[in-house]
């Protein structure tokens, strides 16, 4: 397995910063906007962007985590049943602007499940999607992100992993390529 760093910690920080300012362009003071991270890895994106936005805007931003396990379309096509993570949305999303966040946008199936799960909580005015990495040309469903950190062209056999300072010790994004393809 060969690996290639496609976003190092410096560019990682710049990208997060850019995404924050793009969000501010659209949502201004975030008075009617909530950020929701998709479990399990999207919650890291939300945590980072929340703290960055809060230091820029100097106000608190409503955030939540959403688990999509029971809304997946691959239930019973896997070896073992997917085990759920926690959902934590302690505000009303009715008439709010929701920004869904995940680390990697690939087939779009997770986002499809996420939209389904989200609507069980009410009817938001608008839903947008932010993805740190967009694996272009690999979509199974017609779903596109509104805010993208970095777009990469990948093969299905490749894997993109986002690592976080808080968890893995360093902020970076790595592209793993199986050797048979190289």
């Amino acid at each position, binding site marked *: 397995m060969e690996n290639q760093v496609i976003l190092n910690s410096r560019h990682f920080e710049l990208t997060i910063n850019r995404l924050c300012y793009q969000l501010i362009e659209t949502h201004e003071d975030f008075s009617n906007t909530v950020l929701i991270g998709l479990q399990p890895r999207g919650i890291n994106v939300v945590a980072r962007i929340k703290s960055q936005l809060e230091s820029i805007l100097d106000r608190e931003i409503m955030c939540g985590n959403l688990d999509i396990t*029971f*809304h997946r379309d691959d239930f019973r096509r896997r070896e073992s049943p997917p085990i759920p993570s926690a959902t934590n949305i302690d505000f009303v999303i009715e008439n709010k602007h929701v920004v869904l966040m995940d680390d990697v946008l690939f087939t779009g199936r997770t986002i499809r499940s996420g939209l389904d799960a989200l609507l069980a909580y009410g009817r938001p005015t608008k839903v947008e999607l932010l993805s740190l990495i967009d694996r272009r040309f690999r979509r199974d469903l017609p779903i596109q992100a509104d805010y993208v950190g970095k777009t990469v062209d990948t093969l299905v056999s490749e894997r993109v992993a986002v690592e976080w300072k808080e968890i893995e010790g360093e902020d970076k994004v790595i592209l793993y390529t199986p050797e048979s393809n190289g």
Partner: protein
Amino acid sequence: MDRLSVDHLIGIENLTREDIQLIFKTADSFKEVINRPIKKVPSLRDITIANLFFENSTRTRLSFELAEKRLSADIVNFSAASSSVKKGETLVDTVNNILSMKVDMVVMRHPNPGAAKFLSERVDAKIVNAGDGTHEHPTQALLDSYSIRERLGAVEGKKVAIVGDILHSRVALSNIYCLQKLGAEVMVCGPTTLIPRYMDQLGVKVEHNLQKAIEWCDVANMLRIQLERQDIKYFPSLREYSMQYGLTLDMLKSLDKEIVVMHPGPINRGVEITSDVADSDQAIILDQVENGVAVRMAVIYLLAAQIGRQ
């Protein structure tokens, strides 16, 4: 470990401690789901479940039905009173006829002990035992332990007294297995005629004095006297039973600690517990009912995950 070690839920006896913990962990998520504005998830959209009740039930049937509906399964209901069983059809034939209509899972209550196991060996569907005679009632025991875990933080190390008609109770047997697997100490309490002789072989304490039992325990699970299963008289009168084994508020107040009071329902107010106990803050009877739906969703979800794996 993230899948059950069993193919059917026949009894707690066949489950491992890890199975029970997996069910509880999954039930936590479903408890969150049933408190959402839209209490339904699409996981089991392509599963059909038959609820076969060869014996009367209100709470368990409703609870299973709600659990199935909240997982988006399609369901068919069947009760023996209005069926061909009355016309002489055998259990296997009845079930096979229903399975021919492409049913993936069967939830069954039956008056004969072992009916669920018998069926699981003969038909090609997932079986969930919703009570087989005086044998086991696994989902009730799971929701009882789940409710103890929710109220007291853990089941391990807790002392639980099961009081009443142990002889005719499937809830008691399932509870004993479940509590012991989770590391709790169990005592049974009741008149000698209603406590089976093999109790000491299960490693539970036996007590005939209710006052002593509640002084010992952290949780008292008060069972109903199952008059419908009693072919002979096991005690002189209900009034005498309730004087000796009925839990009253005065008894609870006499303790220097607060114990949790449980009841699997239906309650006979004034027999096994008085009204003021049933309605007190120490009673978690309605929490048990709420948790029942979440626990049954978890059981059905985990078993359904094993169907038709590609």
